[in-house]
């Protein structure tokens, strides 16, 4: 039988606010256990939550950017369950009036375009972390992450393949990153994704029983988990003639398999009710208009503009707009007067390569657009040749050093002394008489050999164009 896989996603994204959602503790990642805490976020008796203005703004922006209808009058609700990572034993979340509903995210897989529908986007607080200590055989609860603001974005079951899921997540990550509302770092847990998956015979309109998979820590893990779970469900039905059980499963990336978490979970009855401690929030049309007017240009729009206005190839424009930090770097470089194509070439060839080698994100680099512009200008001014410039780039990249100083300190200035070039070429030709004869006899390939010899003698600092010219004149002369 042919099977169709049906997938919906629940994505939790930590918002990049300075402080937690309901108290003024820092949201900074890491920190010794329980040092980013106060009586409010550790759920001490009598304490009360007070909503962070920025969280509302970021959640509203995200809703707008994902084409959601924004709920003008929204409220928080309590979700009640006992677990030691949740100190109040309830999570302040939104059930009845989430901030965003009925959104749409267009994605593209290969040449096919598709709309993923967003069921809802809601605000909530993150839980703490539990770490088991084998020495004392007890689990330690660390509440530093408690109260870090999250938005949860729930899609309709619109995905049919892992590729679609990844395309959506890439789009989501890019959108939220461009908005500046989240870092979206999966390795730090600021973007986390649960996969709801079911299978059904192709052509069927009915949804099968779904499972929910958690603990998916990378895009690769998500793709693998989807393939695994789809196969598991198909085999369960087809080979074992069993039914899929609606349950939560934990993905184990090392074992490349998912495992049922059923034993741990009790009856799921969260007893949601309106949070009495937080007054409702009303979003005025004027407020939303202002947010709308200030939404930044997103990756796709920038990519199109780079192709249209700067004549960049679509592929290059796509790479340059991969993250907001990279794209901003490009635009700032261009704004310093550098030709867009030249800036793009440098970024594609040198900058992206270095970032990849160093395993760095663009936003983490110290290297500034001004520095790149300076290097490019030194080349165009003839002070530095292109090959040496790459080395200078590499040398100053880490600490955003001064390229002019580096060139000076290392004596890398381009040799523009025509006399020296003339005499060096003459020396090389005199030292290689047989090759000169062969060249003049028609073996033109040897031209490269002469260039190499000359450049070596000039320690790579000459302008290759000048060397070529002089060589050609002397050889032909």
């Amino acid at each position, binding site marked *: 039988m042919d099977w169709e896989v049906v997938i919906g996603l629940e994505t939790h994204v930590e918002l990049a606010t300075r402080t937690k959602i309901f108290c*003024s503790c820092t949201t900074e990642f890491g920190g*010794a256990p329980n040092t980013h805490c106060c009586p409010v976020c550790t759920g001490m008796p009598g304490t009360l939550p007070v909503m962070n203005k920025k*969280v*509302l703004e970021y959640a509203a922006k995200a809703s707008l950017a994902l084409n959601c209808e924004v709920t003008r009058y929204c409220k928080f609700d309590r979700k009640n369950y006992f677990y*030691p990572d949740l100190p109040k034993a309830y999570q302040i979340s939104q059930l009845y009036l989430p901030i965003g509903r009925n959104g749409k995210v267009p994605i593209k897989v290969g040449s096919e375009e598709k709309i993923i529908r967003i069921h809802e986007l809601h605000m909530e607080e993150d839980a703490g972390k539990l770490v088991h200590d084998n020495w004392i055989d007890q689990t330690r*609860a660390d509440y530093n992450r408690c109260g870090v603001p999250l938005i949860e974005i729930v899609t309709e079951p619109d995905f049919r393949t892992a590729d679609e899921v990844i395309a959506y997540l890439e789009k989501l990550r890019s959108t939220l990153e461009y908005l500046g509302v989240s870092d979206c770092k999966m390795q730090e847990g600021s973007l986390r994704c649960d996969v709801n998956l079911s299978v059904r015979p192709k052509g069927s309109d009915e949804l099968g029983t779904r499972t929910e998979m958690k603990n998916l820590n990378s895009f690769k893990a998500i793709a693998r988990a989807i393939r695994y779970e789809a196969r598991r469900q198909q085999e369960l039905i087809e080979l074992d003639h069993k039914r899929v059980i609606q349950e939560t499963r934990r993905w184990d990336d090392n074992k490349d398999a998912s495992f049922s978490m059923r034993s741990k979970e009790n009856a799921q009855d969260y007893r949601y009710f309106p949070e*009495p401690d937080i007054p409702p929030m009303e979003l005025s049309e004027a407020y939303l208009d202002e947010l709308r007017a200030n939404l930044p240009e997103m990756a796709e729009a920038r990519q199109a503009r780079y192709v249209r206005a700067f004549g960049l190839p679509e592929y290059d424009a796509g790479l340059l707009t991969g993250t907001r930090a990279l794209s901003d770097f490009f635009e700032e470089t261009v704004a310093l007067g550098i030709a867009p194509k030249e800036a793009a070439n440098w970024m594609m060839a040198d900058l992206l390569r270095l970032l990849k080698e160093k395993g760095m994100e663009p936003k983490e680099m110290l290297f500034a657009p001004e520095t790149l512009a300076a290097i490019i200008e030194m080349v165009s001014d003839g002070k530095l040749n292109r090959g040496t410039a790459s080395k200078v780039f590499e040398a100053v990249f880490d600490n955003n050093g001064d390229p002019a100083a580096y060139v000076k300190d290392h004596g890398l200035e381009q040799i523009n002394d025509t006399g020296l070039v003339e005499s060096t070429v003459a020396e090389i030709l005199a030292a290689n008489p047989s090759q000169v004869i062969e060249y003049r006899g028609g073996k033109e390939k040897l031209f490269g050999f002469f260039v190499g010899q000359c450049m070596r003698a000039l320690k790579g600092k000459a302008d290759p164009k000048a060397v070529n010219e002089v060589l050609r004149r002397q050889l032909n002369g």
Partner: protein
Amino acid sequence: MNITPELVDYVSILSRLKLEPEEKARMTGELEQIIGYMDILNQLDTTDIEPMSHTFPVKNVLREDEVVPSFPREALLAGAPVPDDEAYLVPKTVE
């Protein structure tokens, strides 16, 4: 509303309360009586009435996103039932 022992068990599990048989039997009867009395609300027609969770029309009570130094950890942990310098301790939880 008929309150069965099974319903009391279910609600007890959700509340993390484990009643002794005698207490459970008494509680079942009392809850049945109390909840039975509450059914009087059904005499009031509330069609089209918006449920009122907040009494006064206060809205948009928001604070600025400005960091305030966190609390001294010793002070937070001082009241923990199991002493530890860094964290709150619980029996092993499956991770």
